[in-house]
């Protein structure tokens, strides 16, 4: 090599070697010598890779073989043990006769580039992971509202929406929503948040909080909008439950105050009766105390029934026996209220499968309601509550009929509604729970009522347990209900 080329060779900012056919290094530049030491008598594979024999894939060998230049990416190790990524380029060196006598190998250090590539790849994987695993639905829409990308949560719940319109995928609609947060984000480049109701592909309705964010290209133009929807169904459910709880507290508080007022009245009558030595007043007061204490007990039982949402414990029951039990329990109160409790049980009514606690609570509520209706009626001098049981082929029927105050149309319509009560001491739970118990048995409660005439409840319960109701009894609940009902 002539002197100027030798100088260029020496100063090149890469590793340059010249190798013979045995891959022995016959020359090397300064940069090589700095990082790999002396080359004399050493072989390429020894220096670069600390190997004892040649590499399987060798660009130098290929250049010797075909006379062409070749490029490979390789890992090498300096004599100080530093691993480097290099791009290897080879070129043949020919003699005057054109024969290849040696090959020049140029190795350029690309370790920094490779490290950056690795970081970039890791970052991409990381973002991909976040995009897919983030616990909300993400979709990216173009100006025509076509979904171009979507994360795993979206694909799982809404199916493969790629290429579909967002309003089709999220809402099964045939036209864009109005207003549309995605279109708003396209228009003003701002974030837009809105609560929406969406329906997943299995038909489940979900409440979501949607945030639409514009995505810009390097020129600052909005090319897409990212729609991120957080599932807040549970939050909404919780809010509904809290609202119901608030109503329950209000309703219970109102009912309880009314009953406590009755108790206070009873206590006043007892105390003043003793002071005045008026036995009749004492007895009347004590009956008032007992009546209101029983009603408080019944109210607590209703509240527990409502709050626990207990499941039925199925057993064969005799329709007339269960009705008789309830009537026996109510007999004392009927006497206090000076009303007649008439029973008409068909001894052939037979058995049915039911939750004994539930049926007792239901019938008890209906009888209590009828007795209250009689108590509040001052137009008739005599009051009667009739409890009847009849058996049919596929169901048993209970009837509770009174000649109390009766209900107007508005009351009839609302009577099974949660927290509805037309009584000053009602919680609005009793008839709601009765209806729920009948429904849980696959049965029904119907009523006929006329103001000033009276009310008739008709309960129909199937003889056989409904096939889709498969539940285990809750022993703790049963024990609690039993204790409360005495």
């Amino acid at each position, binding site marked *: 090599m002539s002197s100027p080329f030798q100088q260029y060779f020496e100063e090149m900012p890469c590793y340059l070697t010249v190798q013979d056919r045995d891959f022995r290094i016959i020359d090397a530049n300064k940069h090589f010598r700095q990082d790999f030491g002396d080359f004399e008598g050493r072989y390429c594979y020894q220096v670069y890779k600390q190997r004892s024999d040649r590499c399987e894939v060798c660009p130098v060998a290929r250049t010797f073989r075909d006379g062409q230049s070749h490029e490979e990416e390789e890992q090498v190790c300096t004599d100080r043990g530093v691993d480097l990524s290099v791009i290897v380029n080879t070129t043949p060196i020919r003699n005057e006769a054109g024969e290849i006598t040696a090959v020049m190998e140029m190795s350029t250090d690309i370790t920094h580039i490779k490290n950056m590539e690795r970081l970039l790849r890791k970052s991409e994987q990381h973002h991909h992971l976040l995009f897919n695993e983030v616990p909300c639905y993400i979709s990216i829409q173009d100006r025509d509202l076509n979904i171009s990308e979507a994360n795993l949560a979206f694909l799982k719940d809404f199916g493969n929406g790629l290429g579909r319109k967002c309003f089709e995928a999220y809402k099964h609609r045939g036209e864009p929503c109005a207003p549309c947060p995605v279109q708003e984000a396209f228009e003003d480049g701002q974030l837009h948040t809105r609560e929406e109701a969406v329906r997943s592909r299995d038909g489940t309705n979900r409440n979501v909080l949607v945030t639409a964010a514009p995505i810009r290209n390097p020129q600052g133009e909005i090319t897409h909008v990212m729609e991120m929807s957080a599932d807040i169904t549970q939050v909404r459910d919780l809010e509904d439950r809290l609202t119901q709880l608030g109503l329950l507290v209000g309703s219970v508080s109102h009912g309880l105050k*009314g009953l406590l*007022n009755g108790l*206070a*009245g009873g206590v006043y009558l007892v105390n003043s009766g003793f002071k005045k030595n008026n036995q009749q007043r004492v007895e009347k007061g004590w009956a*008032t105390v007992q009546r209101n204490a029983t009603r408080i007990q019944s109210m607590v039982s209703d509240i527990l029934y409502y709050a626990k949402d207990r499941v039925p414990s199925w057993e064969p029951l005799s329709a007339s026996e269960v009705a008789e039990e309830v009537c026996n329990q109510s007999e004392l109160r009927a006497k206090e209220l000076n009303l007649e409790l008439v029973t008409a049980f068909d001894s052939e009514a037979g058995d049915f499968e039911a939750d004994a606690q539930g049926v007792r609570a239901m019938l008890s509520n209906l009888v209590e309601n009828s007795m209250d209706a009689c108590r*509040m009626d001052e137009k008739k001098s005599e009051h009667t509550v009739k409890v009847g049981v009849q058996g049919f082929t596929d169901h048993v029927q209970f009837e509770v009929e009174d000649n109390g105050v009766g209900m107007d149309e508005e*009351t009839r319509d609302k009577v099974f509604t949660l927290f509805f009560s037309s*009584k*000053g001491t009602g919680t609005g739970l009793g008839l709601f729970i009765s209806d729920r118990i009948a429904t849980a048995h696959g049965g029904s409660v119907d009523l006929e009522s006329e103001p000033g005439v009276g009310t008739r409840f008709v309960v129909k319960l199937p003889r056989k347990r409904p096939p889709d109701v498969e539940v285990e009894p809750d022993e703790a609940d049963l024990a609690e209900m039993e204790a409360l009902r005495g």
Partner: protein
Amino acid sequence: MADEMKTVLVVDDEPDARDYLTTVLEDNGFATVIAKDGSDAIAKLEEATPDLISLDITMPEKSGVSVYRKLKEDERLKNIPVIIITGVSDEFQKFISTRRQVPPPDGYISKPVDADAFMKMVGELIG
């Protein structure tokens, strides 16, 4: 003496509550008339003019709120003192605060009614 007795109209749908208040009032020398709901109260007020009205709020047929409104619109009845008896502590206050043209009642008593507090209020109003 009977002519000098003052009369209180007790309006409540709960018989126990009516018994309680009428007994307390009668023990303290007042005559009582009872009404079992809002409609009954309006009917009783057409027959006679009591010296004071004890008015429950939550009742079927016609609520205490609507009875109160009717009372205050009637020249003959609007000056009769009214004590509101309520189990829902803020329902009447809410009604009053949203309708400024209706004057506030003369007294509130929360259920359960304290007999002494009730009679003290009655005494201050018509005693």
